């Protein structure tokens, strides 16, 4: 329906002015909040590229007067960054791939198989989703401690090191939330496909991998990405189970926090604020690169699954 039909000229003008004012107002609001989000990122990069003299000078510079990568070189010397990256990728890889396998089988069992106690087990799982992780952490800490998987010192024998990695991986493999999430996708697959597969003589597990997994591909990719982001962000558990003096087992978050804590100078001529920012940038950038490569998947995935980071 045409709007103009109901308006005389004056009303139309008024309407147009009103629209423009709202637009200006909306964009101003968006720009101010976008700046609020962007400035910390900008300040991180800008500070990391400044010389120490500039960082501690009285009049603050919004743009670096003199660009230098010295802080980045210093951070690579101060922190075992490659070890931290490798550990995080290793822990993330094993956590994610074991999670995916476990979740696919569990979601399959709950969506397709018929067995006694299915509803009971499933309701128990749903109930535990309500319970905050802090409730389990205490006992998990005791369990890995009893197994000798905790705070392995430098130069420990290989089986102890593997134990320490296992302590960082195994507690996160069985994921009720992801099982629930994938089960939702599996349940949308029409029953006819299953019956057709049965007629063709496909076994249950073959049907799972030949039909269900390919159909649920985008959900599985979402779970993979979210699980990797989770490991990259993990701080509490790694800092509990690894030794703060054994840098060979640091992940990015707790390593970064170990390197830049009270022992270093934050003001005066020996200030390392620029190094602190270079360290933060080096931990932040890999994730941002992955984000820009997989932007659509990540944003759609988060809005679909509703997972809080």
């Amino acid at each position, binding site marked *: *329906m045409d709007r103009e039909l109901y308006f005389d000229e004056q009303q139309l003008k008024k309407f147009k002015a009103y629209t423009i004012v709202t637009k200006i107002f*909306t964009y101003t*609001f*968006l720009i101010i*909040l*976008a700046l*609020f*989000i962007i*400035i*910390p990122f900008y*300040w*991180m990069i800008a500070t990391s590229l400044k010389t120490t003299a500039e*960082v501690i000078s009285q009049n*603050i510079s919004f743009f670096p007067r003199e660009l230098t990568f010295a802080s980045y070189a210093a951070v690579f010397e101060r922190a075992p960054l490659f070890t931290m990256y490798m550990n995080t990728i290793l822990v993330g890889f094993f956590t994610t791939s074991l999670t995916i396998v476990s979740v696919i*089988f*569990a979601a399959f*069992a709950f969506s397709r*198989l*018929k*067995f*006694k*106690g*299915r509803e009971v087990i499933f309701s128990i*799982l749903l109930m*535990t989703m*309500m319970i905050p992780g*802090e*409730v389990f*952490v*205490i*006992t*998990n800490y*005791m*369990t890995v*401690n009893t197994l000798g998987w905790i705070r392995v010192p430098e130069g420990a024998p290989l089986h102890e090191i593997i134990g320490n990695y296992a302590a960082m991986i195994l*507690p996160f493999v*069985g994921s*009720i939330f992801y099982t629930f999430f994938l089960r939702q996708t599996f349940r949308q697959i029409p029953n006819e496909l299953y019956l057709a597969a049965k007629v063709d003589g496909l076994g*249950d597990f073959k049907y799972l991998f030949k039909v269900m997994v390919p159909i649920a591909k985008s959900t599985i990719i979402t779970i993979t990405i979210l699980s990797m982001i989770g490991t990259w*962000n993990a*701080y*509490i558990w790694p800092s509990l189970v690894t030794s*703060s003096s054994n840098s060979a087992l640091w992940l990015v978050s707790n390593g*970064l*926090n170990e390197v*830049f804590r009270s022992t270093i100078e934050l*003001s005066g001529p020996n200030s390392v*604020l620029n190094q*602190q920012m270079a*360290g*933060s940038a080096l*931990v*932040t950038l890999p994730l*941002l690169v992955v984000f820009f490569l997989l932007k659509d998947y990540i*944003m759609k995935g*988060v*809005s679909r699954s*509703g997972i*809080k*980071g």
Partner: protein
Amino acid sequence: MLEFKKDGWKAAIALGPTLLLLSVFTFYPIINAVLMAFKQDYVFLSGTYNGIGFGNFVTILSDPKFLDALKNTSIMVFISVPLTIILSLLLAVALNSVKKLRGFFQTVFFLPYVTNTIALGLVFNVVFHKDYGLFNSVFGLELVDWLGSGTTYWRAMFVLMVYTIWNGLAFKIIVLLSGLQSIDKQYYQAASVDGANRKRVFGKITVPLLSPMILYVTITSFIGAFKVYTSVIALFGKGAGQTGAYGPDNMLITVVGYIYEKLWASGTPFGVAAAGSIILFIIILLITLVQFWISKKRVHY
């Protein structure tokens, strides 16, 4: 053991490993936490304790540090959560109403979701630095100490809230925006035929139809805010178990922070930690129930 119907053995193969892991790292820990919370003077290494009772709850509820933690967490929850939700609702509506640059803004607002809490905490630590910080210089404040030894309670709390709001917007915006986009356009067309103004449209169409999403975001935000911990550690740049990890005199210790402190404390009072985690669970449960109860009247599914 469970008696399986026809797919029994397949289910055992498919579920067995997962249930085993969940039993060790989820089910048993929940039961054990409840048991530990009631064991008095529980010593982890020897497994000894002095009878069953409410001793740990008495200890924790009369510990000024825990009461501080409860106070700090509640202030965080009841100020920053409503602020973030209102802000993200306005942003989602604004994003939904523009065409140009929507993708750009959406990406910008999503960025905090894909960053590392510790790394960006260190950035906020520098932005609010007393001598060389951007915040003091932009607002012309002379050497105001926000996070160092000279800070005050409300200054430190202010920075913590700014950081949690900065960090939390992304998730809420994206959930609310996807909710907005799923609202049927016919409602808006009908409203414009009836000549309803923007305020009315927002109050009578957008908010009611978005209410399930708002409820979901509110509940997850409340739960998330009750579990604040890593951001505090990140802002003050100290490790857990160190003095000053929660600010000078541990002024910003949170409930979760208190629980973890007990894992580092001498004698490792795990029973007290377990009691703390049970209290946290009860608080979260109550808040969720209250929100569901309120929503019964207000949420339109």
